[in-house]
């Protein structure tokens, strides 16, 4: 099927810009100042600082990072104007932009950045930044600020993705003065040096972001330097799809997140659509390889064959989100292996054969397969209404129905958002499958997803519990390989190993889609994890 969205679904600023420009090429001109963007978002994070990507979207508005990543994957200056890397790839020396201040007046220099690093990597869980720690803690030997405008990061072993991860929202730099006030205060009112500052958060309703009039630290990816064109953003949480889209139709919102599937075709006609496919892991079913029945690779492969996932995704999302059959990496991560999207096509005959071979040949009177008196049951836990939208849940229902034909009994178990993040009811014995995503720029996510358990500590991010030593070796080697071709091959071999073992079954990537009124110009979506950028946005007359 031809999908017009494909043209949009690329990670590049020019594509999004071209579209916006094409919409009213004649009206192009100097950006107008003023106005408040009323933006309708879907989900509300429990905290406005780091953690879940839903916080990251807001953090991109109020905080700056050390470096930025452009949509082609290049690392470009942000708070660091330049940097050097030693020959052994162990020492990074950053030159920090002078005269930058946080919105509370605190000076942003190398010492402030150092303060952030020390806090992220702290052993005190109340201060530590879980994501930051997961990525870099094991590599950091020492961080220092030899002078106020120089930051030096020394590593104990080379880590190629370092600059890429430093560009991600959870490495956003906040005011040490504000951080001193503790986690609760920083969740409620985080203070950075970004183009906007958080003025008010009315839980369940909206966050008010106001323009930072002194902003002078835009990244090299920005379309302009200096303060934002608009006076502020009202970031509304409109969880109901119909209501959110309705607010765009009625003019109550200038832009909304995530057009509901059913309005996709109509929205493309009437509004400026900007879509970015997020990198990292797509939403994929992680099959629990530590327990029967999925401890048998044949049963996992059978499960991957039972459903027409491509068609299910197309039907459920009305073509607004592409299929991502490669469950190990999103199609927007540059290292992803495209051929793996076509592994395990819809093939009930193959599934039946694999299950018979695996000894699940008997059936009870409802057609559910049995082995040693036990039914072939798959408890599928999912965070309904938070990690998975209603459209996404429909994909699971289709899969459940199609799996029935082959003799799988799939039990869908929705878990409330708070319980999901607390890991409640998700221990190794509680599930056979779990769909989830984890955003990242590229293949550096593999380390998070597939790190094996160490010293009796379970890696909770590896819900598949799949941890062969050869997989970890591939990923670890890749992470310290600086030869691009060689690193690419290692990452790709890792993906093949994961997918060929059916440790995960791919569904679709996370996407960030904005539908905006045509008069709202120059909103763009930034790499690394599809954060919307309102700094350059302005209203046409």
């Amino acid at each position, binding site marked *: 099927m031809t999908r017009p969205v494909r043209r949009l679904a690329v990670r590049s600023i020019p594509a999004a810009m071209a579209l916006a420009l094409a919409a009213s090429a004649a009206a192009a001109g100097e950006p107008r100042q003023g106005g408040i963007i009323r933006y309708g978002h879907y989900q509300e994070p429990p905290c406005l600082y780091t953690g879940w990507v839903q916080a990251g979207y807001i953090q991109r508005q109020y905080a700056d990072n050390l470096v930025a990543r452009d949509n082609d994957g290049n690392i470009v200056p942000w708070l660091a104007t330049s940097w050097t890397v030693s020959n052994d790839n162990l020492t990074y020396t950053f030159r920090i932009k002078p005269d930058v201040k946080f919105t509370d007046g605190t000076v942003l220099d190398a010492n402030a950045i150092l303060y952030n690093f020390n806090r992220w990597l702290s052993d005190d869980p109340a201060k530590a930044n879980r994501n930051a720690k997961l990525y870099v803690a094991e590599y950091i030997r020492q961080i220092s600020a030899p002078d106020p405008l120089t930051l030096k990061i020394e590593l104990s072993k080379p880590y190629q993705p370092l600059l890429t991860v430093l560009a991600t929202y959870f490495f956003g730099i906040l005011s040490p003065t504000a951080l001193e006030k503790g986690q609760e205060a920083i969740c409620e009112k985080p203070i950075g040096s970004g183009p906007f500052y958080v003025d008010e958060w009315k839980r369940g309703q909206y966050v008010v972001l106001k323009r930072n009039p002194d902003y002078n630290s835009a990244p090299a990816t920005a379309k302009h330097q200096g303060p934002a064109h608009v006076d502020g953003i009202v970031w509304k949480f409109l969880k109901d799809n*119909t209501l959110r889209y309705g607010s765009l139709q009625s003019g109550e919102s200038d832009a909304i997140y995530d057009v509901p599937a059913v309005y996709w075709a109509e929205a493309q006609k009437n509004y400026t659509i900007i879509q970015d496919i997020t990198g990292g892991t797509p939403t994929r079913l992680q099959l629990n390889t530590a327990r029967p029945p999925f401890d048998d690779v044949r049963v996992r492969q059978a499960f991957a064959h039972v459903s027409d996932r491509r068609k299910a995704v197309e039907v*459920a999302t009305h073509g607004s989100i592409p299929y991502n059959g490669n469950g190990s990496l999103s199609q927007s991560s540059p290292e992803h292996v495209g051929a793996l999207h076509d592994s395990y096509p819809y093939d009930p005959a193959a599934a039946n054969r694999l299950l018979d071979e695996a000894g699940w040949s008997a059936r009870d009177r409802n057609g559910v397969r049995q082995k040693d008196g036990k039914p072939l049951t798959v408890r599928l836990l999912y965070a309904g209404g938070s990690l998975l939208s*209603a459209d996404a849940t*429909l994909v699971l*229902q*289709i899969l459940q*129905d*199609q799996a029935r034909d082959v003799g799988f009994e799939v039990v*869908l178990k*929705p878990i409330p958002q708070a319980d999901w993040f607390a890991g409640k009811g998700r221990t190794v014995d509680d599930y056979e499958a779990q769909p989830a995503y984890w955003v990242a720029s590229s293949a550096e996510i593999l380390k998070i997803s597939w790190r094996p358990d160490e010293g009796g500590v379970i890696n909770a991010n590896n819900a598949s519990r799949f941890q062969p030593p050869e997989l970890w070796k591939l990923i670890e080697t890749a992470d310290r390989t600086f030869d691009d071709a060689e690193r690419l091959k290692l990452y790709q071999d890792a993906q093949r190993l994961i997918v060929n073992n059916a440790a995960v079954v791919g569904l679709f990537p996370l996407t960030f889609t904005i539908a905006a009124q045509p008069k709202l110009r120059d909103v763009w979506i930034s790499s690394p994890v599809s954060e919307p950028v309102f700094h350059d946005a302005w209203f046409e007359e």
Partner: protein
Amino acid sequence: MTKPADQLSVYPQTLVGDQLLRFLPSADALRTVPATVYAAGVVVAFFLVAAVAPSLLQTHDPFRTDLYATLQSPSLDHFFGTDQSGRDLYSRVVQGTGQSLAIGLGAIGLSIGIALLVGVTAGLAGRRTDAALSRFLDVLLAFPNLFLALLFVAVFGATTTTLIVSVGLGCAPGYARLIRGQFLVVRNSGYVEAARALGHPYGRIVRQHIFPNAMRPLIVMITMGVGQTIVWASSLAFLGLGVAPPSPEWGALLDAGRNYVTVAWWLEVMPGFAIILFALSVTVIGQHLQDRLEGRVNP
């Protein structure tokens, strides 16, 4: 609402005996039953069959998806149309009847059970117990019903059982209040006073006079309450707190269809129609029973 005390005192009744017999209409009485009540009876009978043996009424497998026949409008093949994944909506509504009715009947049963315990105690016990229980009920009534139910579902998760319990608990205070009032009225009525004056033992007075007369309006209340609780459970499901998919419980169907309301009206209208039809039918029957018991139509 209650009959004149003197008339009742002439015909003391017991609930299990004469009272029940009076519910069963004679052949003459059946002729006086309005057509609407018969229609309501047919509707209720249909839903009862759907609840007990849904496959008798279904035209399709209610869980069978068809990715090439999604969102089809109602037709002879699909009476209520198809949903987002091509499932037959009519068969799903039929399939969901059992669960919806279980929630409705279960919740009203639980609700009346609790209400009876609290209401009767308050209505018959001494002034202090009554005052304490009444204040307690006042406090519970101060919370919107839905709030109690939401709280319960949030803490214990959404399953059929928790839905029954949460809706049941939410409705109980209102009924308890009503029962208490009813018992107070009857307890202080002329015929009870007369029985006391005649020296009947208190236990017997309660059994023979107070209980049957106080309970009579309740039977009507229960029938009307069933419809109400189904609507309630549906509202919870509509708020996303219903049973897990792919269950076709009526409220869950409404919830699943709401994003499509502008392009596929049948996803909302058809399950909504089923809810209204059932609630209305049960209410019509309840209303008729009430009228008969109050002597507004010939028994």
